[in-house]
């Protein structure tokens, strides 16, 4: 391709951009020869210069209730009723459309909600939080990171040999209550709730006159690890606070699993659980703490948990 031809193409592209207003100035030099049929560049009036420095974008959080449930249907038949329909369900309705596709705000809110679940899943719990509660860390048999944790639930249910040694050295045996914190599927869940629930639990057990074992943190933790811990430390009641699988836009939900004298071979039927622990909309973490203290006493009273406790307490 010769130079003249290239110049022609460049000029044509520039003209096109100018006509669409996509070119901020016309000061780009074009060769007169590159514009066929003219002997000089066509003079174009300069548009007013836009200063990017003047641009101010400062958005409210679209995940807040007030933004989240805004009606977005163009020209609804009944605008007042639309608001009522939206208010009666957590489902994402009244979102409107552009052609058959979603509107931009709904699309980006959805993506934002998915993003925080992903970040919670692949992140570790803040070390400072664990330090603040003197929670030392042990690990399950997951050794190759989060990917292996997700792929091999069986390994997440077993304490590593190192973990067993550490626990044997550092933990008191046979406490009335053993508290354990595990990352599970959401670091955010632990970070959002631990500071609220721990004081209630520690204070509550003290008031109830129960001995509390040495608390610790389990990395790459699945609920089934309670069996290994029970076998090793022999608590009466074992409580595991663990991050739940994040829902869309909700990564802060934590569960408390509880078992009476847990041991190898136990399964979900042998445990009790309080799930959906989070502030604003879930089980409030402080209330959950108080409930756990009560429930631990009930387990000791009936010497049972799970289905057995239900039958015994009838």
């Amino acid at each position, binding site marked *: 391709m010769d130079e003249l031809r290239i110049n022609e193409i460049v000029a044509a592209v520039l003209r096109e951009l100018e006509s669409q207003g996509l070119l901020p100035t016309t000061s780009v030099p074009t060769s007169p020869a590159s514009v066929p049929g003219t002997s000089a560049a066509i003079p174009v009036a300069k548009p007013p210069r836009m200063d990017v420095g003047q641009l101010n974008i400062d958005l409210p959080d679209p995940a807040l209730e007030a933004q989240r449930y805004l009606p977005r249907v163009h020209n609804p038949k009944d605008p007042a009723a639309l608001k009522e329909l939206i208010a009666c369900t957590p489902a994402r309705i009244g979102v409107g459309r552009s052609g058959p596709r979603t509107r931009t705000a709904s699309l980006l809110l959805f993506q934002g909600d998915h993003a925080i679940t992903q970040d919670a899943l692949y992140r570790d719990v803040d070390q400072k939080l664990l330090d603040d509660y003197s929670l030392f860390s042990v690990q399950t048999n997951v050794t190759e990171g989060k990917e292996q944790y997700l*792929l091999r639930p069986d390994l997440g249910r077993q304490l590593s040999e190192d973990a067993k040694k550490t626990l044997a050295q550092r933990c008191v045996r046979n406490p009335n209550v053993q508290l354990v914190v595990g990352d599970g599927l959401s670091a955010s869940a632990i970070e959002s709730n631990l500071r609220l629930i721990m004081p209630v639990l520690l204070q509550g057990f003290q008031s109830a006159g129960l001995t509390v074992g040495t608390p610790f943190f389990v990395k790459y933790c699945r609920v089934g690890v309670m069996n290994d811990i029970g076998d090793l430390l022999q608590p009466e009641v074992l409580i595991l606070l663990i991050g739940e699988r994040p829902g869309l836009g909700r990564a802060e939900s934590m569960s408390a699993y509880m078992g009476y004298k847990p041991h190898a071979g136990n399964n979900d039927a042998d445990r009790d659980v309080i799930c959906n622990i989070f502030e604003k909309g879930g089980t409030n973490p402080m209330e959950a703490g108080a409930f756990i203290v009560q429930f631990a006493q009930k387990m000791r009273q009936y010497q049972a948990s799970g289905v057995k406790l239900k039958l015994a307490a009838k």
Partner: protein
Amino acid sequence: MLLRTKLHGKTYEFPDIRLLMGKANEEKSGDQLAGVAALSAAERIAARLVLAEVPLWALRENPAMPYEQDEVTRVIQDAVDETVYSEIKGWTVGELREWLLADSTSEENIRRVSNGLTSEIVAAVTKLMSNLDLIYAAHKIHVTAHCANTIGAPGTLASRLQPNHPTDLPEAIRAEIYEGLSYGAGDSVIGINPSDDSYSSVSRLLDMTYDVIKTWQIPTQNCVLAHVTTQMKCLQSGSPVGLVFQSISGSQKGCESFGISVGMLDEAYELAKKHCVPAGPNFMYFETGQGSALSADAHNGWDQLTLEARNYGLAKRYHPFQVNTVVGFIGPEYLYDARQIQRAGLEDHFMGKLSGVPMGVDACYTNHARADQNSIENLAVLLTAAGCNYFMAIPMGDDSMLSYQTTSYHDTPSLRQLFNARPAAEFEAWLDSIGLMKNGVLTELAGDPTFFLKRGAG
């Protein structure tokens, strides 16, 4: 038995059909968890080389579960058309693949041969197919069914309106139904996954959905996807039921983990024929998904693809109106990422069609899988090209009850316009009549749930 090949100078030998079938699969975390996956990429292809030479009779004689011990095997084996089978039993799996893809093989030819296949044969040929093979072959096959409307006709694409709610609140579900209908969703079914499986709650939702259908004279069917025993009670008590639903598994033990048996499904089918509101003759709705048998330790050492094929063999017995795999619901231990979910979606859809059942797909993922909305939009496009009967339709694809993500109310209309596909004919006529659709495209009135408040149904 000798199952051996060389590949690039190295010899690979497989001890039995079971491991050959496992190792021939595309990479899946569930097969690795089950210990049946290929240990290298080359071993995977070596397994396919050998599998391509296996005659069909060897697969029929080696079911995943023995005939004497497993009622799902008995259902599949007893349904084989022996005349057809005797004609094709000498074919190899590789020959079956080429026969399915050949221009000289018509839809009618495939429909006939389908009756001579067992699920293990269906699974085996699927392992030899590339993704485009799966799309191309599935596109040749149309399986239609009729209940209150017709699903699966060429040139149509339907959607299941799935208006779930965390506590089954009827008014919230009604609002979601209105929104869905206003997008032209719901021709496959208005189907709710209840969080409360009790008779009183399920019958209440059946009444409510039927009320919407009656008020607006919608040519569709309703369903509440409770356990089949709850729905049977509803049928016997006179609740208005459109379709009878159950999740199924590819082995007797897997079905037992769902609290069902062939006898129970037979009974449900008889009740459905007797009591369901629509004309029929197809009244059943099943959901499946790779990995469900493995998660119940009910796979007898077999791979998840073969177990999935057996779901379709079982479903066929009940002449269902619709069957869908819930492909990404099970989690990353079974299907790790977008690539594995996509592959499984294409496999399941093809296997269902080749087995002769009307297939839809819940193109979905959970938050702990390496997938996102883009990846299932991709899958939905591929499946529409493959001639999938229906997808799920959920507000923004976000299921507020089941905590997973699937296709949105917006997606089926988009796919219809992309592929020039229409809703089920009766349903489109209805959408036209109320002014929500014209020439297959949503009108300006569409996408507004308050459209449905005017007849005082609310």
